[in-house]
């Protein structure tokens, strides 16, 4: 192998390792919903992704997720939380509140209408 081939191989392997670490193992931003007035609230910025993508809530208290969508892409125009039977249109440039009641501890996915952009709700006891 020539030095340039060795170099390219090494950089390539490092890049593959980094890609897998970054997308699969690096910590995702998560947020604990703020309780107040009997409601747990969290604001989620929708910009071709959900920020934060992980929301922690407590069981047994109603939750309101406020989705603020700013991307104008039809991909994220709807948010779906299958476990709570929710499919909601998110008008661009506006904040849309989605309410539900987590009754038991567990994890629930939420995603865009076509399941490409994802987030997670973690319900703690």
């Amino acid at each position: 192998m020539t030095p340039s081939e060795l170099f390219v191989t090494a950089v390539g392997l490092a890049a593959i390792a980094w890609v897998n670490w970054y997308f699969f193992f690096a910590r995702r931003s998560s947020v604990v919903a703020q309780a107040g007035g009997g409601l747990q609230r969290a604001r989620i910025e929708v910009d071709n992704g959900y920020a934060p993508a992980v929301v922690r809530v407590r069981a047994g208290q109603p939750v309101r997720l406020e989705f603020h969508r700013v991307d104008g892409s039809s991909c994220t125009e709807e948010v779906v939380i299958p476990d709570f039977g929710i499919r909601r249109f998110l008008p661009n440039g506006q904040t849309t509140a989605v309410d539900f009641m987590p009754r038991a501890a567990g994890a629930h996915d939420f995603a865009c209408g076509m399941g490409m952009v994802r987030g997670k709700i973690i319900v703690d006891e």
Partner: protein
Amino acid sequence: MSETCSISVSGMTCAACSSRIQRSLEQTPGVKDASVNLMTGTATVAFDPTAVTPNGLVDVIRDTGYGAELPSPDATPEELLEAQDAERNAELTDLRRKLLVSVVAGVASVVLSMPGMLGIDPSTARWALLLLTLPVVLWAGRHFYSRAWAAFRHHAADMNTLIALGTGAAFGFSAFMTVADDWVAAHGLEPHVYYEPVVWIIALVLLGNLLEARAKGRTSGAIRRLIGLRPATARVVHEGVESDVPVDRVRVGDLLIVRPGERIPTDGEVIDGRSFVDESMLTGEPEPVVKEAGAAVVGATLNRNGALRVRATRVGRDTVLARIISLVRAAQGSKAPIQRLADRVSAVFVPIVISIAIATFVVWYDFGPEPAYLRALVSAVTVLIIACPCAMGLAVPTAVMVATGRGAELGVLIKGGDALQRTAEVDTVVLDKTGTVTQGRPSVQHIELDDEALRLAASLERFSEHPIAEAIIDAARARGLSLNDPDTFEAIPGKGVVGRVGGRQVLVGNRGLMSYRAIDTTRFEQQAAELAANGATPVLVAVDGRPAGLLSIADPVKPTSAAAVEGLRRMSLDVIMLTGDDERTAKSVARLVGIDHVIAEVPPDRKLEEVKRLQQDGRVVAMVGDGLNDAPALAQADVGIAIGTGTDVAMETGSVTLIRGDLLGVPDAITVARRAMRIIRQNLFWAFIYNVIGIPIAAGVLYPFGGPLLTPALAAAAMAVSSVSVISNSLRLRKGP
């Protein structure tokens, strides 16, 4: 002075919650009256606005530990739909414009890529190409990069990431070759540029996005049509004055006028008038139904030929239409279990494709023929571009959306992806008899009595509570006979009724009653036996100790039941009738509709056990019943199908609800589900196969064996076709059952 406001309350789970909130509201100074509804999650409060504000009331509720919100001026379904349409149209216009610019640039780039033919200097041509490509990358394709970046910040990767990386690499390389061509030449390399593929990839992906956005709009067509059914105004009679008001302002109890050709504004009861009403848009039933005084009508159905006066019984979100819309919406938001597979793959798909692209680059660089770095770059870019996570993501949800929407148009509400998948797997259909196969209303079939004997029998039955009594009274009324109350009345359980009417002694009952009272009915014996064999119940009548004749009572079979059973059998499903009735009657009903297998004399509480027994035999059971009496058996079955009784539908029970009161919805539901699952499997198969075959070919695995290499532009075309074809395949479900 007093005002009323309604507050939506969340977090209530039981009646104790609602009464606690109600108490604390009532104890608040300034509150005159408060009522909290657990089911609707609303508190309605009458208050003195000088003492307390609505926001203060919200705080009171929150202090009790529940969520409370003043109703935001809630957008109506139409408004939401309009906003969604407006956004989609804006997106389509934008995409079209970008596509046009990219295609023009693409054609120009093809020409400029052959500088020899134009007789211009290659270096000048490279600069011209760079200037041509810049607007395409910076403007037409800008959203790929900005979206990829946004996703990247969230540790996520999607289709945009692949496009951005692929075109970004090709463009960056070409730009370097253009700007630093002297340096490249000094190192003994020939400056190569790939502007043309960059432009074409962006153009083709934009075309794919455009087609996809249009097709996606069509997947929600059914719910759009349902929402579009909502009438805008109603003609209300108030203190004798007619006026048109918005439907939102109609209240329960309002008197409405519906003229021929108009939609009925909301659910109600006909006060007077007679007309044919077309209910096909909600029930799928093509024949118009006669409506006259006393009949229930459903909002959004079409009044055909006569004027009706209707009293509103349900408004707003309580109407049948509103409940259908919300059930269909919830169903479309749910997931089919089969999607888990697709989810698992698409969650790891993009990073893996990026890894494969890097590996492709390295392998070509190390082992490929010269100029290795060029081949490496082109192959890596092709891998990134051909991979299509969208086709996989769209495979299941688009089919679930179209299928549940199509079901709703046929009057079949399938409650979600889960129900859809299980319905497709059903191999045994259990039908309840009364009210499901039959109309559930016993009526007199055959009368062999003179009018006077019928009048006496019906008069005596006025004191009876037996279901048969109502049928006899109806028959007498139908003949225009006037009835009076009996002087004496005695019911003999299992036999019949005895009493005096206008001084005459009357007996109505079975053979047992007659022989018990020593009345000889031999001459009616044979006829009675024949009637029983045909599934009817013979009833004998005697007046003043002498036999007067007989009549027969039967619960008639719904006219469509036989056709529905035939349909189910053609789909190779086992059809079983389950009933509490005696075996002889049950068998004759079963014969009428073509059912071979009858389980009779099962009391209501044991129906669940029978369903369980069938399931233990390894069958996947759909139980069809009325949703009220059969609720436990419906819940036990793999698929509970609740059948509507006219317009009043227990819609929330069962995993499938038939709005129309006949059994034809059962084969429809199973057909829709089976077709949907077939399409989902096709979608998933093609989406997987496409990537599994496409990516290695793009990487060049066929090359060492003399096989072809794909170009990046060809890869972009293949990707656009693959995601559009998945949606188009799902859209096939819009037609047919």
